[in-house]
């Protein structure tokens, strides 16, 4: 026993990390300080040059990248010098830090910078610093607010998609005939690209003159089955197309959740005399809540990016009725070449999404705790 204890002690024994001597520490700190100052100076020069405050500067942003890499290496070496062995351990984090800075932090900072510019690609003067002008413009932009309003409709519609998907998942988890066949069939729309769906459904199936849906609608007595001519009809048509592609995704996640659910729980509910609805509402649904919330959040993130179907089928029309924030930003960039303003819109939208999802996560956590 004593032996085993000592073995276990050995296993958990952490030898004290060797500390760096004082001279090394000073050298390390100096290195980090110098590299940081150099990096800050390069950034400052470039910002002043770009905003027109000074003539001196670099022709492009490449020196910033080089300065960043130099700083990162100096920082790593500095950590090792100041912290000895513990600093060496920190080196293992460097690749992840590099990656995060390169693909998250730098683009975000760069995006904020571009958002502060008055930059139209046709302007002979090129980018000009304009501070918060783009944000002020956004507040007065009826198109942006209209698109945000539409996003409320599209986002709320996710609940409908979820309800349908849950129904299908329940159906496919039950012992029905040809279950495997139906699982494959129901998943097929998910395999399609939204652009293909735009053409297959929006421009063929729902086409006003020769589309089968329009022909059927006429047969049933609707004289002018124009699916994209009136604002609400167009909105619902776009939503239906997007739902058709997305419901299988929600369904397959929910199906996985249902199949992971222990059967004994439902059997116990049956023994207690619960009918089908009670069994679903008081047993299945609460147990499925964590899965449901996860899939809803993922789906809402995808929904907030909705653009391709809108761009291809209605171009945001009629009268902006189907416009989404993404399709509007796309037009600001693509057709108006307004890079600064487009970036400002995108950054604000990103912020809105982060706030919305944070709220959703908190609320869902509370709700799950209350229900389960």
């Amino acid at each position: 026993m004593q032996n085993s204890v000592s073995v276990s002690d050995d296993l958990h024994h952490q030898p004290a990390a060797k500390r760096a001597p004082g001279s090394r520490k000073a050298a390390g700190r100096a290195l980090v300080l110098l590299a940081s100052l150099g990096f800050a100076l390069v950034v400052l020069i470039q910002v002043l040059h770009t905003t027109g405050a000074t003539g001196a500067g670099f022709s492009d942003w490449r020196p910033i990248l080089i300065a960043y890499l130099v700083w990162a290496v100096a920082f790593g070496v500095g950590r090792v010098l100041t912290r000895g062995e513990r600093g060496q351990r920190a080196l293992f984090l460097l690749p992840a830090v590099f990656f995060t800075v390169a693909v998250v932090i730098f683009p975000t900072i760069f995006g904020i910078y571009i958002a502060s510019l008055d930059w139209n690609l046709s302007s002979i003067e090129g980018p000009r610093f304009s501070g918060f002008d783009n944000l002020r413009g956004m507040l007065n932009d009826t198109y942006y607010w209209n698109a945000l309003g539409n996003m409320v409709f599209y986002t709320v519609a996710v609940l409908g998609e979820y309800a349908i998907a849950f129904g299908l998942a329940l159906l496919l988890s039950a012992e029905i005939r040809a279950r495997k066949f139906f699982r494959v069939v129901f998943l097929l729309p998910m395999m399609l690209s939204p652009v293909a769906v735009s053409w297959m459904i929006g421009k063929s199936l729902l086409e006003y003159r020769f589309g089968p849906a329009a022909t059927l609608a006429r047969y049933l007595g609707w004289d002018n089955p124009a699916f994209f001519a009136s604002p609400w009809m167009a909105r619902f048509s776009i939503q239906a197309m997007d739902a058709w592609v997305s419901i299988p995704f929600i369904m397959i996640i929910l199906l996985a959740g249902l199949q992971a659910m222990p059967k004994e729980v439902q059997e116990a509910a049956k023994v207690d005399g619960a009918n089908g609805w009670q069994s679903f509402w008081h047993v299945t649904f609460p147990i499925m809540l964590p899965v449901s919330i996860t899939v809803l959040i993922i789906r809402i993130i995808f929904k907030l990016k909705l653009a391709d179907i809108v761009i291809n089928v209605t171009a945001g029309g009629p009268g902006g009725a189907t416009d989404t924030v993404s399709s509007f930003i796309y037009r600001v960039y693509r057709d108006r070449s307004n890079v600064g303003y487009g970036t400002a819109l995108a950054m604000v939208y990103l912020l809105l999404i982060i706030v919305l999802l944070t709220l959703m996560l908190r609320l869902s956590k509370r709700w799950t705790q209350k229900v389960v």
Partner: protein
Amino acid sequence: MKQQDYDWLSALHANRRTVLKGAASAAALGASGALGTFSEIALAQNNLRAQIGQIPGVGKGAPTDADWQKVGELCLGPTKASIKEGEFKGVELSFMGLNNQNLHNLLFRGFLKPWEAYTGAKISWIDLAQADYNPRLQQAIATGTVDFDILEMGAPFEGDVCGKGLASEMPDWVKKQIDIDDYVDYLKPPVGTWNGKTYRVTIDGDCHNFNYRTDVFSDPALAKAWKDAGNASEWGVPKTWQQVQAVTKFLKGQKFKGQNVYGYLDAPKPWGGFGFYFLGSRATAYAKHPDDKAWLFDVDTMKPRINNPAWVRAIQDVIDALPSEPADQLNADPNTTGFQQFLAGIGSMIPWWGDIGQVAKASDTSVIGDTVGFDILPGSDDVYNSKTGKWEKLPSGPNHAPNCAYLGWGIYVMARVNGDEKKHKAAWSAAAHLGGKDLSFWMVLYPSGFQAHRTSHFQYDEWVAAGYDRKYITSYLNSQIGSYNHPNRAVEPRIPGIFQYYSIAEDELTKIFAGKVDPQTGANNIAAAWEKLTDQIGRERQIGLYKASLGV
């Protein structure tokens, strides 16, 4: 040109008699040897044009890649005269252009294959959808990432490209090879030039003409119904926008050959900025006064005119006509109206570029080949005078102002080849081949995305020899030359960012057409946004370029 001179010239339009007289004279001169070697060259060229005109032959189905290659091979003469075989071996060129309607770049590939085989150069292709063209080009310019050596581009972008020194100046040998003096007058400088230097090999001439269904407007049953509806005028092709409106409203609910018949087709759905031209075609007769070259902006201030009574009336016309058009018309862009509606037999009037006339006769996709007529755009009983702020009736009758929208596509060589002599020569040789006199003739005969743009394209007999019906082609070509040479033509402003102006307008127009805002408010919104854009791009510079584009 004065109006009366123009009317006199119009009366001289080529007909069978005058063409035959001219041909007989030429033949007599040739036979007598009076023209010497020149007559032999001319005869050889005529033979070549006759030969390529038969590939595949009008009415014999749409041309294929094999046809394009064949034509490219036959038209290699000028290249062989100036370039040795294999001279460009090892040269690689990148070409950026459109793939709209599976034309443009797809044709160029075929035409240039024999050129590649002969010269040894290799071309890689960047294909763009029409709506993606402007952003792709603008991004390449702004970010300094021009990744193409040859560019298919429209004159409206010359301010963005040539104005920034990104294009290569055309060498003299190219001017000679393509016979640059053969271009119709309105496509001669300043179009294709910048600061006095020539940059463009023109391969297209653009204007919107008026396409209509001859069978609809000669139908006795519709004529009777028209009279029965209390109309005093005879049933026929509208000559003014006022008549277009009346006919469109009348046709609502009428039947023709057992089907619902529609009148004018509007294109309210945005199309990457290009859709604005179609409102422009409705507006020019109202907004372009014969005494004023400007019609989109005030020439001295760049103040937009889009919210003046003329433009607002044009917008109101669309709103008034839409209930009489197909139910889903709000969701129709110009591609839809041209290729999915009019050529498919829906609607009886449409403004479009010359593609409609080519495709109607020489493509498998059309069902209306024998029943299309052409004219210059309708006029208006009155015209708005921006200087006096009043509507006027002209003593000469209705005001016509053909919309010379876009000024056509051209081939441009980028400045990035200037440092490499071999590459420079290769790029210009490819451009010259595509813009060659004979090859261009084939391109305007058949579906290509391009319409007549050379004086030599208006030899009606050549079209008839290729298989076009004389009446049809006379109507088609007269509608184009009548627009190009019209003294009151409305010319495209060649100013940087023009498609941004158009795109902003498209967005606001969809709101107006959907009934969200009234025409005047919507037009005011467009004007305000245009003012902002002008300030953003640079007002003084825009004024200068706008004046230059109008020749003021």
